[in-house]
């Protein structure tokens, strides 16, 4: 019963966090910019790339999702967290029989729901544009281009959207962790962006240490490869949508989802350790 109550409270906090977030001008501006960017990929039709145009549109759409999604994930989580602290909504909330972990989990879920809507909107817009351009290309080039298999695997667009969303989850949890010990909005955003870049490039260290000689340097590189989650794992846009032969196996998708979930939970728990000591 108490666990059920806990879920109810988390759900309630997540709900208001989400509603508060979608009302933010920042979210709406970023969403509009992203949609505009994805939509502007129709500009590629002027180059007459043939079916290659679809690859360009997809790269553009995935790039927009990855880039703006990362920005939104960090800034929205930071803003939602600090707004509650600065406006004392957190004080009102935590003066109730609410655990701090419930509060953090609710904040996270609210931000994660926001990212779900963002990812969904972008993938839907991208799929719509791909569908439209695919139909136009088929009309122009004839059905023969389909003989090599379908031009676009739309399911993959959503697989990419889903995996990006999972990655945004880790990123939001990392941001929450940074926010739990930082005093300002700006500090949290800057540190989280640094961590994002490290996680994005971590794979270089991860792959390099095995070829290094034993010693302090190898130890440090190995540590770097282990401490930060590997975000490059989610950079699978190039293996989706078009390449039929090397389609991403379902087991890999599941592994990535589980990996993301573990890191998300871990960073929320670490955030809780700091948040417990924090003055509200």
């Amino acid at each position, binding site marked *: 019963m108490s666990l059920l109550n806990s879920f109810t409270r988390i759900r309630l906090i997540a709900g208001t966090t989400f509603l508060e977030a979608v009302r933010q001008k920042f979210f709406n501006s970023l969403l509009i910019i992203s949609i505009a960017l994805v939509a502007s990929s129709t500009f590629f039709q002027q180059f007459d790339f043939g079916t290659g145009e679809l690859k360009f549109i997809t790269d553009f759409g*995935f790039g927009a999702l990855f880039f703006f999604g990362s920005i939104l994930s960090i800034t929205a989580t930071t803003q939602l967290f600090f707004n509650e602290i600065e406006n004392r909504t957190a004080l009102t909330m935590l003066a109730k029989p609410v655990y701090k972990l419930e509060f953090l989990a609710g904040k996270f879920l609210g931000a994660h729901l926001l990212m779900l809507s963002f990812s969904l909107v972008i993938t839907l817009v991208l799929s719509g544009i791909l569908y439209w351009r695919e139909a136009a290309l088929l009309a122009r080039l004839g059905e023969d281009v389909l003989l090599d298999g379908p031009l676009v695997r739309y399911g993959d667009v959503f697989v990419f959207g889903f995996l990006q969303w999972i990655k945004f989850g880790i990123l939001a949890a990392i941001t929450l962790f940074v926010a739990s010990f930082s005093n300002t909005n700006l500090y949290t955003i800057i540190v989280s962006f640094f961590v994002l870049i490290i996680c994005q490039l971590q794979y270089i260290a991860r792959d390099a240490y095995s070829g290094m000689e034993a010693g302090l340097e190898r130890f440090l590189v190995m540590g770097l490869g282990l401490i930060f989650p590997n975000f490059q794992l989610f950079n699978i846009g190039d293996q989706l949508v078009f390449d039929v032969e090397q389609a991403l196996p379902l087991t890999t998708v599941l592994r990535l989802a589980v990996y993301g979930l573990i*890191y998300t939970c871990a960073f929320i728990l670490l955030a809780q350790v700091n948040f417990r000591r924090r003055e509200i």
Partner: protein
Amino acid sequence: MSVLQHPLIVRLSRVLTILLILLLLGLLTRPIEAPAWKVVKAGQPEMNLEAIEGALGQGLVVGVLGGFRAILADFLWIRTNTIWERRDRVKLDAMVRLVTTLDPRPDFFWINGSRMIAYDVPNWRIREEGGYDAVPKVRQQAIDYDQAQQAFDLLDEALEFYPDKAKLYLEKGQIYLNRLKDDARAAEWFLAASQQADAPYYAARIYAELLRKQGLDTEAYSYLKDLHRELPNVPYAQKGIILERIRELENALKIPFWQRFQPAVEPMLEEPRGAPAFDAPEPHDHAGHAH
């Protein structure tokens, strides 16, 4: 206050604890991460970082390494197109090299790059030297061979990444056939293309056709008979056309009636899903531009 309670020590110990937890987490998640990374990494061929860094600068290299490799290559390809429109052949060559070095995964870059080099640049060079009427045929041919060789180098590089990709073999065959008018060499590459798993059915038919063009009717006849036997009974295999060619060759070679090819009677099968079965030469949209 003991030294251990000093805020600096307390903070340091907290940071170390968190790092330790993350380290353990990294080790614990390895069994999930490693197999997934193996799959993901297989789709991300190594880059010649030095070449890219020289051309792009360090800032963009971080972007490339961080996950913007494909999109940056796309932008550079658009730039390649602008250069192509300006007919700047020196820059064009460098840009095609850069794009394919940056992102060798899409065959689009290799194929369209090689088409620009093999089909368009010779036209420009001949025009630079006075036009088709003024430049002697020998010189025109030399230019064609020079450019074709550059395109072949590019395609050979692509074949190092994708040794099984029929499209690349076909592209070389097309250059021999269409630009260099070398039926014998073209035939070699169409044959090689037809031997790849993802080969279109027409590769083998063109090979046989090229044998005929070279006067090798007996070889073509024998090849087509084998081909007819091996091909599945699906519409895209166009076995009817092959049989037609066989009959033509039988007439040309005056094969006695009783020795003529007897195709096995088989029911027509449904086209297997996802099978490499396209059966029409791809439109020659050399980088998508009209010539």
